[in-house]
Every structure is written in C-alpha cells, then in structure tokens.
C-alpha cells in the first residue's frame, strides 16, 4: 500500500508498531505535494525542513520506547487562518502578508501534544469569505477530481490536500459551510463541531458567533480521532464549553438500529441537481437497510437562513476585520499623506473585492437607522432557525441532507454573481446559525465523476451519535475509498 493512501489511524498504528516510519510517511507526503500541488494548489507554504526533522524526532522517540501518542509522527495540514508561533498566517489576504504569528492557536498546541507534525498551511478564500477558494491572494486551488472546477470553499486548500493525498488529514474552519461544502465537492469527510466544542483561540476570526475549527480526513474514524484531540474546554476562549471528556472513537462501530434519521422536506426542493438528490435518496435507503428509521421532519425557516447568515456574518466580520489598518502588522499603503489616507488606502489595496463587499454590507446593516431592520431582525430569525432544529430533534436523532445543492462547479462560474455564490451554501448555513454539529461524508458521484456529499446534522454536543451514524454509513459503502486521478 502506498503510504500517501494511509488514513491517520492506519498511519499512526504503523508508525507506532515501527512498520513504517514517520520520516517515510512525511517524505511520501512531501513528494506527493511536489508532484501534484503545482496543479492542485492546496498549499501556500510547505514546512519541508521542519516536518522532516520533527518526523526524525518522532521516530527516535518511538525507537527509544517512548509512549506513542495518538498522532505520533503523523503529518497534518492546517488552514492559513490558524496561528502558529513563528509561522506566517495570512488568511490568504494581501493585507496580512508579512504577518508572523507571535503565538500559537490552542488546536495547534493540542495537535502537537498528540504528536502530530505540521506539514504546511493551506489555501483558502480570503478571510474565509467564499465558497470556491477563488478569492485567495495566492490564486486558485483546484478540485483534484476535475482541475477545471473549484474545490469549494473556504477551506478549499485543506480539503483538496486531503483529497489529493498530499496529507492524511487537515484542519479547516467552518463559518457557513466552509469545511462541509468543500469536503462534499472533493469527496472527503469534514466536520463542523458544535459551537463551543473546539477552542477558537488562535483562529483568525471571520464571524465570531459562527466560526468553528474542524477536522478534514478520509475516514470518519479519523474525524473522531482528530476531534477528540482538538476538542474540549479552553480557558482562553470564553465561548468554549466545559464538559466531561468523551470517547468518540470507541463509540464508533455501534449499530444504528432504532436510530431515527430525519429528512427535512425544505431541503429537497428548488434548484437541486437531480443526481445529488438521487445520491442522497440512495444513502437514506442504505441507512434504512441497516435498521435506521427514516422520518419526515420540517425546518420551516430554512428559506430565510441565507439572508440571516449574510447579515450576521458580515456584521461581525466588518468589526473583526477593522483591525487590519496598517498600524501594528501586515500591509500598510505606501507614503500615506495622513492617518485617514493610511487607513483608507491600506484597506482599499490590502483587501480583495469579496472582503470589501462583505465589510460594506456588514457596516451597512449595523449603521445608524438600519440596525433594527437588519441586524436585530436577523438575530431574531436566528432564534427561529435554532428552534427549528430543536423541534426537529424531538422527532429524530440525526438529520440527513445534501451538503451542497450541486457537485463542484466550474472555476469562474459564480464569481461574477455574489448572490448566486452565497446561495451555494444554502444547505450548510443553518447549521452554523443553530450552532449544531454536522459532517459531510462522500455518498456518490455524478455522471461526470464528481463527488457528492451527504450532510448529517446532530444535536448540540451530539457528536457521538453523529459520528456513529456517519461511520455506520461509511462502512456500508466505498465512496470514501475512491481516489481522484490527479
């Protein structure tokens, strides 16, 4: 078996048993990156030298009989919005070029404590604003299944790296679907945890009340392994929740008999690709055959989710991104004539069009006279959307929907029409607004061999059940084993 095909769990076990070495695995990934990344464009930075020396150290530790940690010697790629001391972090924006993080994100600390090796940082839509990874200042990331198409976004680089087997796993962030939608479009598994499950400390904020960091991998087991490591309370994040530790990995493999899977009727209407619809239907049948009960549920406010999201997310973003002003770090427009000129040109030259558009929208909805009509209204509708899920979960244990209304679209196809681009997040956005967890797992292909993703949504902190169902489905299929040609 080719080392680059290993899952995290397989790799960790082989390294632990010394059947392979961390060094060989890291070397294999680096070679793969060298071979395909010029085409895929998943990475904006590869930590070749450090990754190899860390791998060497991991191998030595194991050789000396040191207790092998869960991810000992396993390489992981991280999105370009997570801080690592001494490494640049730019959110794929010109405005943060030259910024070297002087501190490390909690999730990165935890990955390292588990023995993982950072192999590089990955491309993304600028400040995570996008659904196609086309707004990055570094250029495109391409879908490994069809390089004329987008990988989805905003965690397009993290997802493409895993799909193209440049890394066995990665971390992304998900504000409105930025892990799940690209995972669906690239045929890998990606989880957005419950809001508050994973610390946001060190994640460069887009929309603070919606952002969550989550794992991307090629198996549900790997997702569980990674979530156990990065999750849990962090005193540095006021919105991180204190809960007893749970053993997600060991609860995998259980039967899904008697579990009720809800299908919201609102998710199967307008504009959906018939092939996507068919794939989801087939997936539901599979789960039914394994003993799960399929029930109809309703999420009646779904059609308002995108509007609600674009008010709340842009409002928070307009405030979060105000700090990029050329004073402390990053880009400053040359030769400012005065302070105002420095601010205005720095932002004008440093931010891309989509970021400016969202800052404008967010500033507008918060501005005097519009707050109640837009921002407050959206917060109230958010309450209704949240309640939709609470009501639905009275009737079911997990909700199943498509992760994206279509398979991967063509590069440039939606760039000109921001609203069309926003609508591609229609199935993932409600989940962030409600704060519930959701995973996308591969569930088929279109006739063009483009992956299709099944989204499973759980209750608040229902990651255990969610992963159990996803794992049960995955073990009945082999979609996740299919590999792109790239």
């Amino acid at each position, binding site marked *: 078996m080719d080392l680059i095909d290993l899952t995290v769990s397989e790799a960790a076990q082989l390294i632990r048993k010394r059947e392979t070495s961390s060094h060989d695995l890291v070397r294999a990934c680096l070679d793969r990156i060298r071979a395909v990344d010029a085409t895929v464009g998943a990475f904006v930075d590869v930590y070749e030298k450090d990754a190899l020396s860390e791998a060497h150290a991991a191998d030595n530790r194991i050789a000396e009989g040191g207790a092998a940690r869960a991810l000992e010697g396993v390489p992981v790629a991280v999105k370009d*919005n*997570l*801080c690592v001391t001494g490494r640049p*972090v730019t*959110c794929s924006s010109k405005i*943060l070029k030259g*910024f070297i*993080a*002087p*501190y490390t*994100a909690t999730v990165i600390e935890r990955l390292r404590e588990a023995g993982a090796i950072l192999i590089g940082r990955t491309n993304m839509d600028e400040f995570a604003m996008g659904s196609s990874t086309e707004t990055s200042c570094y250029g495109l990331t391409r879908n490994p299944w069809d390089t004329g198409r987008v990988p989805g976004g905003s965690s397009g680089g993290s997802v493409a790296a895993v799909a193209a087997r440049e890394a066995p796993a990665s971390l992304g962030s998900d504000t409105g679907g930025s892990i799940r939608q690209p995972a669906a479009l690239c045929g890998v598994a990606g989880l957005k945890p419950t809001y508050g499950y994973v610390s*946001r*400390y*060190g*994640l*460069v*904020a887009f*929309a*603070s*009340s919606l952002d969550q960091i989550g794992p991307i991998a090629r198996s549900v087991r790997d997702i569980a392994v990674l979530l156990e490591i990065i999750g849990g309370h962090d*005193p*540095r*994040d*006021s*919105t991180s929740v204190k809960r007893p530790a749970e053993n997600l990995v060991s609860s995998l493999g259980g039967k899904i008999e008697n579990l009720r899977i809800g299908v919201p009727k609102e998710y199967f209407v307008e504009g959906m690709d018939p092939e996507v619809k068919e794939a989801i239907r087939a997936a539901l049948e599979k789960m039914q055959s394994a003993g799960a009960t399929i029930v109809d549920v309703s999420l009646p406010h779904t059609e308002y989710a995108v509007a609600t999201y674009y008010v709340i997310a842009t*409002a*928070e973003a*307009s*405030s979060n991104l*105000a*700090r990029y*002003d050329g*004073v*402390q*770090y990053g880009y400053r427009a040359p030769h400012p004539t005065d*302070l105002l000129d420095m*601010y205005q040109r720095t932002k004008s030259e440093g931010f891309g069009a989509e970021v400016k558009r969202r800052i404008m929208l967010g*500033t507008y909805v*918060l*501005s*005097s006279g519009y*707050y109640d009509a837009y*921002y407050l209204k959206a917060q109230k509708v958010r309450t209704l959307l949240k309640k939709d899920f609470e009501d639905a979960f009275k009737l079911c244990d997990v909700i199943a929907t498509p992760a994206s209304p279509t398979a991967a679209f063509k590069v440039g196809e939606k760039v000109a029409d921001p609203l069309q681009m926003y609508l591609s997040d229609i199935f993932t956005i409600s989940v962030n607004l409600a704060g519930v967890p959701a995973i996308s797992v591969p569930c088929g292909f279109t006739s063009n061999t483009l992956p299709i993703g099944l989204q499973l949504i759980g209750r608040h902190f229902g990651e255990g059940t969610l992963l159990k169902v996803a794992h049960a489905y995955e073990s009945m299929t082999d979609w996740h084993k299919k590999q792109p040609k790239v």
Partner: protein
Amino acid sequence: MPDYEAVIGLEVHVQLKTRSKIFCGCPTTFGAEPNTSVCPVCLGLPGSLPVLNETALRYSILTGIMLGSTISSFSKFDRKNYFYPDLPKNYQISQYDLPLCVGGELEIEFEGKRKRIGITRVHLEEDAGKLVHAEVEGEDSGVDFNRTGVPLLEIVSEPEISSPEEAFAYLKGLKLTLQYLGVSDCDMEKGSLRCDANVSVRPRGEKLLGVKVEVKNMNSFRAVQKALAYEIERQNRAIAEGQRIVQETRLWEAESEMTHPMRSKEEAHDYRYFPEPDLVPVMVDHALQEVLRASLPEAPLKRRDRLVAQYALPEYDVEVLTSERELADYFEACVTAGAEPKAASNLIMGEMLRLLKERALTLEGCKITPKHIVEILALVSSGAITGTTGKEVFAEMFETGKRPGEIVHSGGLAQISDQAELDRLADEVIAKNTKSVEDYRSGKAKAIGFLVGQVMKATKGKANPQMVNEILKKKLEKDSSKR
C-alpha cells in the same frame, strides 16, 4: 434679560485597581516602558480572544451597590466601533444597552449643605492605549498599548449639577467613595480618573435643557471647575449677544484657561454597537449581591455623621479623620482599644499626620499600633510623662515601633514629681532669675511662666508642670510675706 442657570452632567472614567487587565493577564502597572505590558489579547492580534477579569466585575458591582444602583441581573458586553490608532482592534469592548448598574445617587456636601446627585448608569469597559504626539509638525505619532485593556468603570451622572463648585464637590465625593471601596486610586495625574462634562444653560425655572456642549481634556478637579466656569460664562455671553449655542465638543486648554472647539472634524458618531460575540453575558444573582453588600464599607459622609454623634468630636476633626478610610479606621481602632476619642483625635491629627507627611509615608507603613496610642495617652494623662515628653516618645515610637513604656523606661523620661527635687530646682531658678522674681512680685503674674519654663528646661521637659507651678507660686508668695 432672563437669569440663566447652568446644567451640568459629568462622565467619569475610573481605572479599577486590579492586578491584571480586564481581558488578559498583562499587568496594569503605571509607567512601564512603552509596549512592554502587552500580549496578543490586548494588542488585538488576529485570533486572540478576551476573557473577563473576575475582580473587575466584582469591583464594578461593589461600586454599583455603594451608589445605590440597581444591579442588572442580565448584562452583556458590546463592541463600540470606531477607528483610532490607540484602539488596536478598532473597536472598544464596552457596555451599551444593558450596563451592569443602572440608577443610583451620590450624596455630596457643598457649602455645608448636603445634596444628592443622581447616577444614570455605571458600566465596565476597556481602556485605549496612549498616543504620543510628535513635537514637530508632520512627524509621526507614537502609539503605546500598555494602557490598552486596563479596566475602566464609566460613571455617568444625571444632569443635576448646577455649578462648577458643585461639580468639584461631586468629584471629591466620588473619589472618596471609590477610595473607601478600595476599587480605584482615582489619581487624575496618573490618569486613573478622567472626567468629561456636558454643560448647557437655560433660563432659570425652564424645564427643557439647553443645547449641550461636551467639554474634555481637563486634568485635575480644579481644571474641571475652571473649565466649567469658563464654559458657562461663554454660553451666557453668547446668548446675551444673541448667538446660538452649537452642539459640539470643546477642549479645555490649561495654559490659556479657555475651551476651544475640537480641531478634528467631528465624525458622525455612528458607533455600530452590537453584542460582543467573544464574551458571554454576565448574570449577577442575588446571592453574589448579598455577599458583596455585606463587605461594603460605610459611606464617607455617613461615617462623618456617625463619628460626630458617637464620639462628640468637632466637625473639623471628623472631616480630617474621614478624609481617608484608613485614617478613620485607625482612629476608630484606637478608640476601640481604649483611647479617649478627643485625645486620640488630637494625637492622630497632630503628631501622626505631621510625621507621616514629613516622611511622605502612608498609614499602611506606620509602625505605631492603636495599642501604642492608648498606652501613650495613658502615660500622659496619668502624669507618668509630660505632654512634651509625650511628643518625644511619639517620635521615637514612629521610628522604631517600640512600646511607649519601654521608650520612657530606657530613656529615663518619666515625669519628675518628686517634691524635694522640684523644691531644690525651684530654689535654684529663683536665685538665678531675680529680675523675673521682681516682676512677679510687682504684680506681673505672667512672669511665673518664664520661671516654670526654666525649671522645665533644666529637666528637659520632664518636670511635672503643675507641681512646678504650684511650688514656685508658694515659694514666691512665702518669701514676699517674710519680707
């Protein structure tokens, strides 16, 4: 022309006396090298997150309870969005529509009369950094973020202050109250208290408020008083000249003693407040309020009233004794330990404060315990030492912290009340000072004072002055009858 009255509201920001900043662990120490008390959180670095300082919240609630405010059962933080180089995130974490404390009042004393000034609200927020302006036109300004994130309590008064002097009394009263609580130093020079004022004038008796002008940049209580006096006068004059008052922000300029409109164009204040998503709401339950209420000190004016009534002390004494909570505590500790109130008050207000001031010390570092005070007062009142010796003993006690009895014993400072010894000394003095003796005998009763003084001098102040007086009198009268 109608008679005009001033309407003043004050907005005071005080720095809370916490060890660390409001949302991070950086120290709040004043005067550190620029940009050394900073971290990713208070610098607003990408990805950093705030976590509320428990003590800052506790101090805020304490203040609210002390001012009789309603403590909100549900309160939250908001972002106030505006651009300024001293604001690292370009928003300030503050409180907008749900402040921690609402309402309340501060009782002040002004020209011997008491008045209650309403409090509108009290809220918690983070301080901004400091801009160091260039001395040369066109040169860059420097930014120091050490102060960024220092906890501030904003206390807004109702527009119920009617003169600059009253404003001064309000600030004094507020400062004393917060110092009694121990939540702030309220040191305007170190910037731990800042005050902005809203001033308007209106015809006396009119209900509606006039156009208000915001006055900023005052750096002492006296400056506030002066700026307000100037501004009221300016507004009155403008109205008298038929001009209209424009709503604006004016800066007080200490050198010229005038207010000037702010030079920079006033932005349309569109702060786009919204709930801070990185901090969760605060809910203050009844139990916590009760715990804090129980720890509340007596308000300064209440304590003044009680001290006058309980110890029959003059108003003046009490005003001095209550000018600091520690001083009043010290005084009462002395009384509790057994000191006679007026004697204790005299000693504390006299010798004690004098020595503290001389050495630039505070009560905190003082070596004299209330027990020492009781003992020294007893030594003097029993006649074991003289009042003069008392001062000497006190000074030594202040230096060494030794018990007064021990100082008297080892220094041989006990009062001389021995009849024979004093007789001998009196005879010596009479023999040496014939001029004064003559004066006395010729009817100048005052001359005896000089003779007593000579005996005291000969004993280094240890002679019992009453006895000396009586002995001298007897001797001088006896001698004269003999003649």
